[in-house]
């Protein structure tokens, strides 16, 4: 992270059209967009269950989580838009530059390309069965719980306020999803088998959560992302044990997939955006 440290001293400057800009200037926006993209894409995935859940009460619950995540995404995009509009050159190499218009929560979510989205691979994976969806939600919610737990103390007051609000929601998501992981893991032989399989499928997407990109450096975020991994592992191990799903193989070296946070996604991402962005692409410049 030498690069960032030196950037902090404002020694590294790169030339942009708009003049001399310190390299690290865009990192805060990138970090906020990364958080927003995570929330939006998981909201989009979870919302696919709406009307199709295994039981009415749970259809409502997963839709609720989807709505919470969408709300978080909106807060974060709005804040990112505010920062970007103040310093437009910070959104370097973006497809949003054209026209010189101000960016909005909608242009950030509907007009960026696949390679500009910074969400982790975990959230873009297809829903699979209810067990996979629940497990993905649980693993992600614990990560969000720890992350917002740090961000609530951020020196950035706006980000701290978003974190405080989101933390209340995520606390419930952790509780709800952990209860389901335990229920399904320790339910019937069939549900146990499905959960073991889900865990095998999802696990290789969890490493990326704690693999910091330059924009997640402590100098930007105010906390050490790598240090959260230990708490995360401890918390999920307890629940997986109670769910009779814990396997020592989890601790062995599994090759972890990564790239989403850099904009290198799985093939699923293009289809998510094709649906998500369809209206704004088909009817440019319309108000809705």
């Amino acid at each position, binding site marked *: 992270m030498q690069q960032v440290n030196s950037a902090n001293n404002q020694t590294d400057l790169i030339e942009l059209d708009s003049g001399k800009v310190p390299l690290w200037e865009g990192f805060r926006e990138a970090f906020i967009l990364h958080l927003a993209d995570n929330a939006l894409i998981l909201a989009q995935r979870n919302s696919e269950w709406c009307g199709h859940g295994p039981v009415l009460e749970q259809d409502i619950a997963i839709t609720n989580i989807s709505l919470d995540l969408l709300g978080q995404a909106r807060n974060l995009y709005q804040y990112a838009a505010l920062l970007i509009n103040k310093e437009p050159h910070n959104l370097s190499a973006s497809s949003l530059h054209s026209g010189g218009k101000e960016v909005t929560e909608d242009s950030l979510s509907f007009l960026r390309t696949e390679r500009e989205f910074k969400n982790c691979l975990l959230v873009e994976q297809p829903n699979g069965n209810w067990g996979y969806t629940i497990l993905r939600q649980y693993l992600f919610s614990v990560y969000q719980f720890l992350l917002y737990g740090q961000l609530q103390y951020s020196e950035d007051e706006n980000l701290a306020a978003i974190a405080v609000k989101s933390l209340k929601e995520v606390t419930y998501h952790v509780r709800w999803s952990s209860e389901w992981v335990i229920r399904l893991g320790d339910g019937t032989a069939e549900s146990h088998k*499905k959960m073991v399989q889900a865990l095998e499928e999802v696990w290789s997407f969890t490493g990326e959560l704690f693999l910091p990109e330059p924009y997640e450096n402590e100098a930007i975020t105010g906390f050490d992302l790598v240090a959260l991994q230990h708490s995360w592992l401890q918390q999920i191990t307890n629940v997986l044990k109670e769910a009779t799903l814990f396997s020592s193989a989890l601790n062995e070296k599994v090759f972890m997939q990564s790239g989403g946070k850099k904009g290198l996604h799985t093939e699923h991402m293009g289809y998510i955006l094709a649906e998500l962005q369809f209206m704004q692409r088909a009817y440019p410049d319309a108000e809705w």
Partner: protein
Amino acid sequence: MALQDADALFQHKIDNEIKIEPKDFMPEAYRKTNIRQISQHAHSEIVGMLPEANWISRAPSLKRKAILLAKVQDEAGHGLYLYSAAETLGTSRDEMINDLHIGKAKYSSIFNYPSLTWADMGVIGWLVDGAAILNQVALCRTSYGPYARALVRICKEESFHQRQGFDSLLVLSKGTPAQKEMCQDAINRWWWPSLMMFGPKDSESTNNDQSIKWKIKRKTNDELRQSFVDMAAEQVKVLGMVLPDEKLKWNSQKNQYDFGEINWVEFWNVVKGNGPCNKQRLAARVKAHEDGAWVREAAIAFAEKRKMKREILKEPAI
């Protein structure tokens, strides 16, 4: 108390606007009619989620996506209260859902039409929810207590949905030519099916007389349909759009709108299962139920395990 007296007391309560409650005596036919009507209403809420859920992933802005998600979630909530209200009459949610899946129970035919463009979301809110509200406001005074109380809450939320629907159409009506066209097209497609929501003509409806006497229904199909036409014919002017009916005309003598004839052949065909989406809608519900079977079974098995564990822990040590 002789059955005759019980019957008389029952009708006396109805005549005096005293609500019938779950443990009160009620004629078997009254119980059955209520189960049929409330479960049909519940199924309509649940199947009705599908045409709208169809646009959640493609909503054109984050705000619209949030509004739509919350709306479809409300429909699920309505389904829940209604299934609970019907259960007070001695049936179970499983039984009702099974009746839906085997085609024995009906749901509102309107949901057998496809939602083809984003404007359909607005029109469903304005016309479909609007028609439902007219039906349901009349039903808030229905004689069966649990149903009446569920309806009061549902009506409040539905009125909110209708305003949101109209508001999103208002945006389209002031938008680009493509948006205006999309809006008019959606009105054209949903207008007649919305009129069909009030059911057959009074002269051909089999359930009207007894239901009115028991105050399960408070207004006839034709009365409600007329109120709907009178309302929509005015509101459409605000949008600067038109209703697709050449015979629609204000009748100053009757103080109401005259309107054209519904295509009853289409109406009965959709009721009988031949609408554009009947098979698709039912298949989606059956699939959700079947795919969820292992989840429901696991939840039951887990609850039993926990219960047993607690009982073992309670046993005194030997």
